[in-house]
């Protein structure tokens, strides 16, 4: 099977949309990519008959058979490592790691193999694969079912890292990831799986990796986030609007690569940046964003770049909600930036 044999994905006409949840959009993306390209395979723990613990792959095995959608032994090292081997040999694997917290056992395969094979082989070999994994807190999961480990991966050259927050992006980014040439770590903010609904086109489309999105336009400050925190970031902006403050809200969507231009243009306009992420603060990816903002816009900043992040503690079970940077905490940081 060569790429030229692949079929068009969806049949809908331009302009048509319907409402999907985030997880439905993810399922659809896989379904359409499986239909489009026979090289695409989907696998992981419990993804087959069970349809994944969150049911992201529900129905796919039924539709495409066990050869293309299958369960693996309980081993993340095997799942990621096998995905690398399959990708090197010409398949387009979409591997599921059941929870981002369990990237650990597959970590070496991700950073030593997936991330480096193109570079170390002088471009002779590559591993275009997607690792999908539910991440983030707010589901009463305690520390082993709530973590946000994206910064381990943004720190590793060779990997692309994305995290959608809307159904439209979830589908478009996943499709782009499957069709791209690189290993992509695709984080799914699990508390938004069913909490977020949105319009998704019926026709085939992709969302380019590395492009952010403006969720709300404003002039007084820029709130920048990604993934699970986005609904709260928008809520904070609404609350500020009621006080007469116009906040611009940017969803990064991709962390590697990330949309510097969009961020710098916005912060140049507003003069203030509030960075929001639920991952622990120390070595948080947003530290990089803050660095780039100050490097380019030092003169134009009206306040220090503010960071709202998770605490530097393991994710606590009982205080699950308190840990997360909710709308109030985000709004408070905005007020600090405004009053600086």
């Amino acid at each position: 099977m060569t790429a030229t044999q692949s079929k068009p994905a969806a049949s809908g006409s331009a302009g048509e949309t319907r409402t999907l949840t985030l997880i439905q959009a993810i399922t659809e993306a896989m379904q359409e990519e499986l239909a489009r390209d026979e090289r695409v395979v989907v696998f992981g723990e419990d993804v087959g008959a069970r349809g994944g613990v969150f049911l992201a792959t529900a129905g796919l095995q039924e539709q495409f058979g066990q050869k293309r959608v299958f369960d693996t032994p309980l081993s993340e090292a095997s799942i990621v490592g096998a995905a690398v081997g399959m990708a090197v040999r010409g398949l387009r694997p979409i591997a599921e790691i059941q929870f981002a917290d369990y990237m650990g056992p597959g970590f070496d395969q991700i950073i030593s193999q997936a991330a480096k094979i193109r570079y170390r082989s002088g471009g002779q070999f590559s591993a275009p694969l997607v690792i999908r994994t539910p991440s983030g807190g707010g589901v009463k999961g305690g520390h082993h079912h709530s973590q946000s480990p994206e910064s381990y991966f943004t720190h590793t050259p060779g990997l692309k890292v994305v995290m959608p927050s809307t159904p439209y992006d979830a589908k478009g980014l996943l499709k782009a990831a499957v069709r791209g040439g690189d290993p992509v770590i695709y984080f799914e903010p699990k508390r938004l799986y069913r909490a977020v609904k949105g319009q998704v086109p019926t026709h085939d489309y992709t969302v380019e990796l590395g492009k952010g999105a403006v969720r709300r336009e404003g002039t007084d400050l820029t709130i920048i986030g990604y993934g699970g925190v986005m609904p709260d970031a928008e809520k904070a902006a609404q609350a500020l609007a009621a006080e007469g403050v116009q906040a611009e809200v940017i969803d990064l969507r991709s962390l590697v690569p990330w949309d510097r231009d969009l961020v710098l243009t916005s912060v140049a306009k507003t003069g203030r940046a509030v960075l929001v992420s639920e991952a622990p603060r120390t070595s948080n990816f947003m530290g990089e964003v803050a660095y780039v903002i100050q490097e380019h816009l030092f003169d134009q900043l009206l306040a220090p770049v503010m960071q709202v992040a998770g605490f530097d503690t393991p994710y606590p079970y009982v205080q699950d909600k308190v840990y997360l940077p909710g709308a109030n905490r985000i709004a408070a940081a905005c007020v600090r930036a405004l009053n600086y």
Partner: protein
Amino acid sequence: MIQPFTSDPLQWVAEDGRPIRELPARFTPGVLRDLYREMVRAREFDKKLVTLLRQGRTTFYAQASGMEATQVGLARSIRAGHDWVWPYYRDHALALALGVPMLDLVSQCLGTNSDLCRGRQMPHHFGAARQNLVSISSSIASQVPPAAGNAMAQKYLGVDEITVCTFGDGATSEGDWHAGMNMAGAAQAPCLFVCENNQWAISTNLRAQTASENIHIKAKAYGMPGYYVDGNDIVAVIEVLSQVAEQVRAGNGPALVECLTYRIGSHSNADADAEKNYRTREEVNAWLARDPIVRVERLLDHLGAPVSAEERADLISAAHREVDEAVLKAEASGQPDWRIMFEDVYADLPVHLREQAAFLRAEQEGVQA
């Protein structure tokens, strides 16, 4: 002496309750009754916790109904509170039988102030230092290499203890499992590995998990004996595990025991509808007929010391009372507040955490940071 690497699981008591080998003298009706009580207690704990889950008073629970003979049998085969145990998340019958108080288990499931783990772990992930029961990690098989290390320390210190490490069949696919088994074998550490083979890892059956005929033969690769036991026959479990534990204690190196059993209920609350999704009613029914508790009842019957309906009902209501009282007491202790987040992250409180705690205190209590 019992034999390693048998092709069939070792068994003492048939499903109809008749001994198929001579019943060892220590299994008097009194001893069997005690085992029976402990198993019933664990079974009822399961039922009560599922109810608490449905009521939303806890958010996660992994049933062990059907696995009581394996877990209670293991507890009775080692020196409770003396040997060390690295369990996995389905091991409450083991914990109860090792003497972890009901209140401690219930408190952990509810995440109250009475929880020894201070509300930080997800429910059903207990740990109890007094019983040398190390806190459970959700990450499958991650306890295996540390258990090997625990046993290496015991050997180093020259203490008369062993380490027990439990896991499901799925765990044996993880790299950590192989690494830990290999380490223990190479170090000849006093570690007793117990596979609670309930045949399913969520929706993945053993046949999809490994092409290996069974789990215990994997021990061969790591230079240790592997035993195969009917995990629903508590007599067999205790006979094999206590003998193997003594061999491990005697300095003969680690061993693996595979207990073949079955989880009757769902994997967790996340797959309440297991029968609809991935396994058949017939299979579940076949294993229901092999219930380990019923087998002891039948054995007692056979020995002329039957359990009366009244005695059974009393045991069940006593277990329910025990759980109810623990729930009341746990809930009365209240919920831990935001402070628990910052304690125990490190042995001391580094400055950045002190700052973050002050920030949260200001936010939560309206106090100026």
